[in-house]
């Protein structure tokens, strides 16, 4: 017959194993089995201690640790992914995020002005980050970069009067400057290229 504490340990380990899905898949695959084994060892030690509160106390300590470390691993995974992402992909992603947020803010501008203003600033921030990404874009893609920059400026030229019409308290320079930077970065890079002495 199985000891009741053994059944409790198995159940707790089963729950722990299920909770590991919050980690990135690669981390889970690499460390999942050893993490479960370690947790099982901890459970056994807790049930051997004789205290009826040892196991619940262990669970209470484990859950925040799990949440904290899973958050960290997911964040690390995202940053690693961003590092390996090509400049072109990152730039496109930021462009879509920026324009998407601006369009979304127009659609919720009347019903939720607070959210709309937040989205407008997020849009400006996305474009500002995109301007930095554009700086890293290869010189062979300057024309493409200019076209994207100009497209963004045209879209904002349509969106900004809508914000004004909706009377959203958006501080215009915080949006206009990132928008211009998007177009100015490829222009500046083109000028630098022209000024470079040819061999």
């Amino acid at each position, binding site marked *: 017959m199985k000891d009741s504490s053994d059944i409790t340990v198995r159940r707790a380990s089963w729950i722990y194993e299920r909770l590991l899905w919050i*980690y990135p898949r690669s*981390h889970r695959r*690499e*460390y999942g*089995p*050893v*993490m479960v*084994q*370690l*947790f099982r*060892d*901890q459970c056994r030690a807790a049930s051997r201690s004789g205290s009826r509160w040892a196991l619940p106390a262990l669970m209470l*300590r*484990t859950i925040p*640790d*799990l949440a*904290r*470390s*899973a958050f*960290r*691993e997911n964040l690390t995974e995202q940053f690693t992914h961003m590092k390996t992402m090509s400049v072109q992909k990152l730039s496109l992603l930021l462009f879509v995020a920026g324009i998407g947020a601006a369009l979304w803010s127009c659609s919720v501008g009347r019903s939720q002005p607070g959210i709309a203003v937040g989205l407008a600033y997020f849009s400006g921030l996305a474009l500002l980050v995109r301007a930095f990404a554009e700086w890293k874009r290869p010189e062979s893609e300057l024309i493409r970069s200019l076209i994207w920059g100009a497209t963004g400026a045209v879209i904002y030229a349509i969106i900004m009067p809508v914000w004004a019409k909706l009377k959203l308290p958006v501080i215009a320079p915080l949006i206009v400057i990132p928008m211009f930077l998007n177009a100015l970065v490829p222009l500046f890079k083109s000028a630098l290229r022209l000024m470079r002495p040819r061999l």
Partner: protein
Amino acid sequence: MLKNSPEPEDLLPLTPAVFHILLALAEAERHGYAIMDHVTQTTDGQISMGAGTLYGTIKRLLHSKLIEESDERPDPEMDDERRRYYRLTDFGRRVMTAEAQRYARLVKMARASGLLARLQNP
């Protein structure tokens, strides 16, 4: 900026979790549970890390080549085959030495300012 092969000083100061894991491995090769147990005992329970924190830190330590996985088993007959043992690398040992020297300098400074004496004799 970090060079391709960092110097031990580039990695200092170490976080408490990293320091205690490396300290546990400085004495002997250990598996996850043994590391955790060692940390809890040597710190009188002040530092108690869960499996998530432990293996997250181990992953980063392996990546920065401060520790490595060991194929050897101290006692294969008595031990679970699935356990993974870790040991300090030479670079890891140099980093720990540099960190210990940094702590020694701090203790010296605290002693010189009279702070440590006051703490010992309240």
